[in-house]
């Protein structure tokens, strides 16, 4: 656990620590008040947390991408109606009701942001990482996508064009990265291991075949 919050650099640690304690105490007071008033089922809170901490995450999206790489008929269905194609894989629901898959090509690289808040395709990627929700990413990726990519260690060919998808409505976007070379004949499980969370947001490329983690 971080003792200082990333956004509180003006605060010294002692001050910040008491600030955090105040927040933690306020949250505890709120929770017990809501339980006492019968507004929430305490067991429901644990289910929400367990779902998004342990059950839903970017391995879901990696399965979708791997299948799109391996199965051209599925890729076509993912192009035509991503919500239905992703549902075939068993991933549906909140913050993924209306999915669109956007496919990287040698000449076009896609990236996803929500400049207004933190919209993100939960059923396939889980909850967003901190940087996705932060002011530096949300402010810059629309105007300086190359600079943001460079911070992630990604350099595209000069000829590549970048398309940034700003999630301003309830449509959620999933980037399908390009399939790495040298993966002919790989099965979907092997391919899925090459698909990182960031590659499905567009801040990374798929992992090269030679760097696959077993």
């Amino acid at each position, binding site marked *: 656990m971080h003792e200082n919050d990333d956004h509180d650099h003006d605060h010294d640690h002692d001050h910040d620590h008491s600030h955090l304690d105040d927040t933690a105490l306020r949250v505890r007071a*709120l929770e017990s*008040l809501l339980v006492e008033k019968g507004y*929430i089922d305490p067991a429901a809170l644990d289910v929400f*947390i367990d*779902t998004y901490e342990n059950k839903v995450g970017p391995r879901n999206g990696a399965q979708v991408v791997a299948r799109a790489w391996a199965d051209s008929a599925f890729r076509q269905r993912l192009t035509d109606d991503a919500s239905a194609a992703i549902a075939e894989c068993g991933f549906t629901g909140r913050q993924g009701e*209306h999915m669109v898959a956007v496919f990287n090509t040698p000449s076009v690289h896609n990236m996803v942001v929500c400049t207004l808040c933190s919209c993100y395709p939960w059923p396939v990627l889980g909850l967003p990482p901190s940087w996705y929700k*932060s002011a530096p990413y949300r402010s810059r990726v629309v105007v300086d996508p190359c600079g943001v990519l460079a911070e992630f260690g990604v350099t595209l060919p000069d000829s590549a064009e970048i398309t940034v998808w700003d999630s*301003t*409505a309830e449509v959620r976007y999933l980037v399908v990265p390009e399939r790495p070379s040298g993966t002919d004949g790989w099965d979907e499980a092997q391919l899925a291991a090459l698909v990182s969370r960031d590659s499905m947001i567009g801040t990374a490329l798929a992992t090269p075949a030679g760097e696959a983690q077993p």
Partner: protein
Amino acid sequence: MNGAQDLGGMQSFGPVRLGTDEPLFDHAWERRVFALALAMGASGAWNLDQSRAARESLDSVFYLSAGYYRIWLAALIELMQQRELISEAELQAGRALLPAKSLPRVVQAADISAALAAGAPVTRTPAVAAQFELGQRLRVKRDTPAGHTRVPRYVRGCVGTVARVHGCHVYADSQARGEGENPQWLYNLRFEAAELWGDAAQNSSVQVDCWEPSLERA
């Protein structure tokens, strides 16, 4: 509203800070705030757009400095206080001082998996035909709404091309005002970087979802 949430194109926030292990929650209390917000959101006491509007209505300096889950916490408390579900005195006391009000529903643990898997689709059967079509050049109207909008400032007044027609979707601006779903056609517009950023443009474009009321023929 032209609040601090509308970050696209702003400068001077520094580099994107990448964590090493990137935990979903930096502090234990953030986990609780996340779950409390989802549980209360599912109660039907307010809708998703009203919760976004509550976060955006927070003081701009607070919004930019508080951190993500402090924003969620402050907005959650605000939404509950506005509806007199809780009071500040109760929060300070950590216990109920006034009788509970009735909620449309209290989400039960056993129902959550099914509810999350079902989600809450926002597409609706259109009452009228779409005014615009694929490939058309449209301008985002210049506007400065006092309330919630999903039109980022950086596209207002700019011309884009309709890249997708998403169908008829619940209109966030109306929902946030508590005026019902008022479904409207939703389009994806492609804006070339030069249209948005002038000489700072890179070899890029931005694609933004816009509802019909915010658009006009270019």
